[in-house]
């Protein structure tokens, strides 16, 4: 553990922190640093939001015509619902 946790340390640990994989001690160091560093707070909050937006817009169904042609190419027509 770093005795002095700075912006670079935060950046290095960012994905683990946001993915819930950081140990408790590291989470505390990140949160203490964020309380003192407004820029890092903004980076963490906006990065969290960025990942959220990616997840929120990720799902998309297979277009019906693409699905039909796929089943035909695989000779699975009888399983088309």
């Amino acid at each position, binding site marked *: 553990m770093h005795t002095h946790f700075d912006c670079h340390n935060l950046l290095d640990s*960012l994905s683990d922190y946001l993915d819930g994989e950081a140990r408790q001690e590291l989470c505390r160091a990140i949160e203490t640093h964020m309380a003192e560093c407004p820029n890092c707070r*903004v980076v963490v909050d906006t990065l969290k939001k960025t990942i959220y937006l990616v997840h929120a817009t990720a799902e998309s169904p297979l277009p019906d015509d693409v699905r039909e042609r796929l089943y035909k190419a695989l000779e*699975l027509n009888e*399983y088309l619902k």
Partner: protein
Amino acid sequence: MSENASLSISLPALQAGDRAEFARLVEVYSAQIYRLALKILGNTQDAEDVLQTTFLKALQSLPAFEGRSSLSTWLYRIAVNEALMLIRKRRPEVQVFAGDGGDDEDEDYLPVQFVDWTTIPEEAMLSSEAVTYLDQAIQRLPPKLRLVFLLRDVEGLSIRETSETLGLTETAVKTRLLRARLFLREQLSGYYQERLLEENH
């Protein structure tokens, strides 16, 4: 991902040539494979070609599949390889996407925008214009970062599954994932900063 449906697919039935089971495999994974191919290639016709080839190749290779990775990781690997092959065929000048070497410097991805745009209402962030911008920003990701980002953050694979799919070390996956996320954050910060400025005038 429909976790329950994928868990209940029977590998022995698939390998015994059970057509109904293969149809279930296609049903469970086709939307994800198409979405991934579309985001790698940015073209619906190419994405459809990759989708069909992936399942045709899967059908041929099933008897030899040893089950050392999950079915989804295996399918993603076939799809990524097919997409890369298509790119190499159509645009031979494009450098190879995967591989461990040649990463840029960390400094290229350090945050430079510190505007807090998280207060913008969610419906504005999910407007069709905003979603289109996000899609375009993903397309602007450097290709080797984009593959890692798509598998991990769009398709929800774990770090280990992403590294297995792309043949990268877990360390390389983590480095590229962070850079991709930081790159997109910068892009969205620029976009939303303008929206905030418009609001205040």
